């Protein structure tokens, strides 16, 4: 399940969008014990000014992203906008049965997007 992609307009600023990965949907519910799925989320949205500038409490903006947004606003054809990408990620753990009937707990880093930023 994913939050629908956005078009133009004020809510189109770069931010994390909801994306839930359901193991049942992928057909893994017979061998994955827990969790049933996880919120992976994804980044999408415009990185034009002022979205590129950090809001209060937001991730620090890279100067290069701000420079690039400035260039784009002055000469759009010269340089594209910065990209909206994950700025902070967190891990998940999966508990499952493998083919040798073992109960396995695996830990995966950087599987959930907590914050997005313009880069």
């Amino acid at each position: 399940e994913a939050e629908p992609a956005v078009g133009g307009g004020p809510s189109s600023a770069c931010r994390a969008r909801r994306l839930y990965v359901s193991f049942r949907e992928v057909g893994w519910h017979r061998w994955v014990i827990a969790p049933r799925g996880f919120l992976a989320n994804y980044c999408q949205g415009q990185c034009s000014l002022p979205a590129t500038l950090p809001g209060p409490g937001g991730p620090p903006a890279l100067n290069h992203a701000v420079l690039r947004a400035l260039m784009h606003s002055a000469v759009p054809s010269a340089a594209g906008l910065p990209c909206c990408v994950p700025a902070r990620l967190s891990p998940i753990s999966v508990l499952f049965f493998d083919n040798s009937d073992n109960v396995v707990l695996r830990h995966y880093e950087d599987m959930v997007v907590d914050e997005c930023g313009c880069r």
Partner: protein
Amino acid sequence: PTAPGPAAALLQALGLRDAPRGAPKPRPVPPLMWRLFRRRDPQEARAKLRWTPPGATLRPCHVEELGVAGNIVRHIPDRGAQARTPKPTMTAGQCPEWTIDFDLSAVEPAELPSRARLELRFEAAEAKAGAAPGWELSVAPAVEGVGTGPVLLRQAVAALETPVHAELLGAAWAWNASAPRSLCLALALRPQAPGACAHLAEASLLLVTLDPRLCHPLARPRR
């Protein structure tokens, strides 16, 4: 069968060769594995089930509760359990030996073992009146068709009411060695003083490994 399309890509990203078929017969998940999962899974943490104090961050690629480096924990049952006779016949004056066999073929060569803990559950033996408590566990390699090798590990056991744990890394398994495809051991549990012999009810192996390919070097805090 290999999963088609995006499912295959996700499996690969999860470091799994192919989608497991699922447990042939669902077996209960050991409580320790549930505890490790709940302690580790941040989304469970968000549901306020976390046992670590707020603000504490868990080190990546480290199993806090077991105090070792690792990002894969496996609870491996004894393959030979079915074939084991419920009440072994005893030669006169001797307690029986048991052979246990663990399938480690799922462990990849790149995985570095950091803990291999044998867990043994014995059924209480009828203690003879006046018999001194206490047992001695001995562990030796069992080679099919060859018999038992030299004893690798001897350990005093005070009581049988709780599971007996024995650390195999450094004893039955060299440090920094990658996991063998299977681990076959011969066990013997001898009473300190002549008394009734115990019976092995269940054997399992808790194996913790570190797969460096799934670990990022620790990001240095911004100066």
